[in-house]
């Protein structure tokens, strides 16, 4: 693997996480429990589109085959998507969505906090801008985790169930492969070993405040880095890519 190939893959991973999460949050449009939350979740979705766009554009440039951000978003099959499995899981109920957003945005907060010091100027710039957004996503989600956890018996049960079910998808967030190793040597990629304890400590603190139990680390799901996904990603792509597949080059 060359540095160029590693960087291409690294960018796809970041871009795909943003794009697929954005898709899932968009599904709440007109369906959230209250209007204000509807706006909040779809706002976050737009933040994520704004993150996916420059990163996928940069991935295309790095690849050097003339592919644009749109080509990468709408013309890749699921085996060529490298997002974490956590991003593609169905929304479930509101507690499930909140728990996913909390686990993921807390990860992103520490990830982009490190990436803003990357030796790669483009990634560093995207990270610095993204950090402000994910800090808000994390705060908003953590407040909901506490509200639901320390709320009624029903809300406590639902958010605990959600955290329990999602926990096995959190190990993958910190996985590293050849691409990470190569880029870490050049001070481009984030040292995952460094952010993992920070993530764990923040997550545990919030869960404790919410009177929730932090699940024990058991079996962890894996696959996203290799393009091996749950059955849910294919359904997302079939809907998201329909127009470009049916009417290639369509513009409006």
């Amino acid at each position, binding site marked *: 693997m060359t540095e160029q190939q590693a960087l291409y893959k690294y960018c796809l991973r970041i871009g795909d996480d943003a794009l697929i999460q954005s898709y899932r949050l968009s599904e709440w449009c007109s369906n959230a429990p*209250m*209007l*204000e939350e509807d*706006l*909040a979740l779809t*706002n976050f979705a737009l933040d994520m589109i704004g993150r996916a766009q420059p990163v996928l554009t940069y991935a295309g440039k790095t690849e050097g085959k003339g592919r644009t951000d749109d080509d990468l978003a709408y013309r890749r099959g699921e085996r060529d998507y490298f997002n974490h499995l956590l991003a593609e899981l169905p929304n479930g109920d509101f507690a499930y969505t909140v728990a996913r957003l909390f686990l993921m945005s807390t990860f992103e907060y520490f990830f982009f906090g490190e990436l803003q010091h990357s030796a790669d100027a483009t990634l560093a710039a995207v990270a610095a801008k993204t950090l402000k957004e994910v800090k808000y996503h994390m705060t*908003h989600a953590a*407040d909901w985790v506490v*509200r639901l956890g320390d709320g009624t018996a029903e809300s406590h049960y639902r958010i605990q169930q959600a955290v329990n079910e999602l926990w096995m998808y959190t190990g993958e967030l910190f996985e590293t492969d050849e691409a990470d190793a190569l880029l870490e040597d050049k001070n481009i990629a984030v040292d995952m070993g460094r952010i993992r304890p920070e993530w764990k400590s923040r997550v545990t603190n919030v869960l404790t405040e919410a009177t929730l139990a932090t699940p024990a680390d058991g079996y962890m799901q894996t696959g996203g880095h290799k393009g091996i996904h749950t059955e849910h990603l294919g359904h997302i792509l079939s809907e998201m890519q329909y127009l470009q597949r049916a009417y290639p080059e369509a513009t409006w």
Partner: protein
Amino acid sequence: MATDSQLDTWEVFMQSKPGANYIHAGSVHASDKKMALQNARDTYTRRGEGTSIWVVPSDAIVASNPDDSDMFFDPADDKMYRLPTFYVMPEGAKAI
């Protein structure tokens, strides 16, 4: 009218730039101060409208009663002499 089942309402006031007056932007639903502030942020600042937000519980606002309009506001209608229009601007004063 159906009762509002979506938490308490809060009035939102926004400042467009530092030093400017806070202007009423609308209202949001929320169960607590933090949520009210976040909901106000998400509802009213998406297009760069503001740099600072106040949220106030709607029931903390005391409003004038429409029935009192005559007593409250009509007396001001015929007091032209209260307007500063009749004063001559001092020479050289630009910022009055």
